[in-house]
Every structure is written in structure tokens, then in C-alpha cells.
């Protein structure tokens, strides 16, 4: 008697969570910054882990939970490593830019403030790839 009710309940919960996963993935696609996307992927990981647990109850397979433990570890690792990569890229670009500025200064370009600004602008334009530019 309860078996049918339990099945209906679990399937309903799984449908709700599947719809939430789609919504969170949409946030990951349209999220304007990197941090938005990473946060959304983190949420997808959490919901996926819960879905695996529900499936393991529904199929009566305890071993599916081991998969969800491993999945939790890997999703945590992916978030940490992706943030480290982005921070590393950022730091590298900053260092490159400082180097270019120092070289210009060592070449003895003595500029007024206006000219110095123009120089900085030109450096920026050469530095940043066009597809990353905001406008």
C-alpha cells in the first residue's frame, strides 16, 4: 500500500528537482560574470547529488550513494580549481601589463599626463583580446 505512495512521492520530488536544475543551468548560461556561472554549477552539483540519493532509494540500491559521495568531492574540486585558474590568469595579465609599462618608462619616454594616458590606452588596446572587450 505504501509502496505506491512512496513511488509517487519520489517521482514528484524528482520532477521538481529536474525543473530546478534546468532553471539553474539557465542562470549559468546567462550569468554575466564568471562567479555567477561557478555558483550555478555548484548548485547543479548539489541538486544532482540529492537526485542520486533519491534514485538510490527508489531503486533500493545503496551503492548509488557512493557515486554521490564521489560526485560531491569532484564538484568541490572543480570549483576550487576553476577559481584558482581564473585568479592565475588575472595575475598573469596584471604582471604583463606592469612589465610593459616599466619597459616604456625605461626607454625614457617622458610624457605629459595626457600623453601618458594615451600611452596607457594604447597598451590596453593591444593587451586585451577583442572578444573580451566590454563594448
Amino acid at each position, binding site marked *: 500500500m505504501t509502496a505506491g505512495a512512496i513511488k509517487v512521492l*519520489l517521482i514528484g520530488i524528482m520532477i521538481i528537482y529536474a525543473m530546478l536544475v534546468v532553471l539553474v543551468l539557465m542562470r549559468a548560461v546567462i550569468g554575466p560574470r564568471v*562567479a555567477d556561472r561557478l555558483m550555478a554549477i555548484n548548485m547543479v552539483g548539489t*541538486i544532482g547529488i540529492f537526485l542520486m540519493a533519491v534514485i538510490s532509494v527508489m531503486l533500493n540500491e*545503496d551503492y548509488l550513494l557512493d557515486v*554521490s559521495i564521489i560526485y560531491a568531492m569532484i564538484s568541490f574540486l572543480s570549483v576550487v580549481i576553476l577559481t584558482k585558474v581564473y585568479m592565475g590568469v588575472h595575475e598573469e595579465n596584471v604582471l604583463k601589463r606592469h612589465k610593459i609599462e616599466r619597459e616604456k618608462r625605461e626607454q625614457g619616454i617622458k610624457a605629459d599626463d595626457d600623453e601618458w594616458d594615451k600611452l*596607457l590606452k594604447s597598451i590596453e588596446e593591444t*593587451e586585451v583580446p577583442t572578444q573580451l572587450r566590454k563594448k
Partner: protein
Amino acid sequence: MEWVRFVFAAICLVFAAVMESIAVFGVYKFKFVMNRMHAAAIGDTLGLMLGALGLIILKGISWFSLKMFIVVIFLWMTSAISSHVIMRMEYSIDEEAVAEETETIRDVNSSEV
């Protein structure tokens, strides 16, 4: 007895789904990453705990509940850490003094912020 357990489990699972929905709603409502992260933490902690509690009540005490407990404890520890790491990345990338790079490019020379 069976039905009592089922009712308690159903209440927990439905509340878990509601909490997760609130988290997703907050993720869409707020305009800035750090606020969004605050909303997302609801689903990572309360939503997951209620869901695990519902499943444990449904299944009874066994190895399953121990594993579920481990998953919940692990996610409670790691979701805080990953929120912290994401926020630190956002802060270090978005510094005004170095405005450029990745996706948060800003023009230093223009007055627009």
C-alpha cells in the same frame, strides 16, 4: 506505523523542494553575485539537510543513513569553502585599480564604472 513514517518523510521532502525553489528564486531575483551566493547557500544547507532527513526517515536506520549523513556533512563543509573561494576570486578580479581581464573589463580612462 508505515503511514506515519511516510507522512513525516513526505513533509521533509516537500519542504526540501520548497527550500531549493526559494534558493533558485533568489538566484534569479538578486542582481549581484554575492547576494546570489547568499540565496544559493539556502539550498546547499537547509534544502539538502531536509531532503536527506526525509530519505533517512523513509528508509530507516541502516548503512544508507550513515552514507547520507556523510554526504550532508561533507557538503556542509565544502559549500562554505567554495563560496569563500568564489567570492575571493570575484574580489581579486574586480579591483578598480587594475580594471580589466576575463569578463569584468572596465575602461580605466572612461568615467563609467
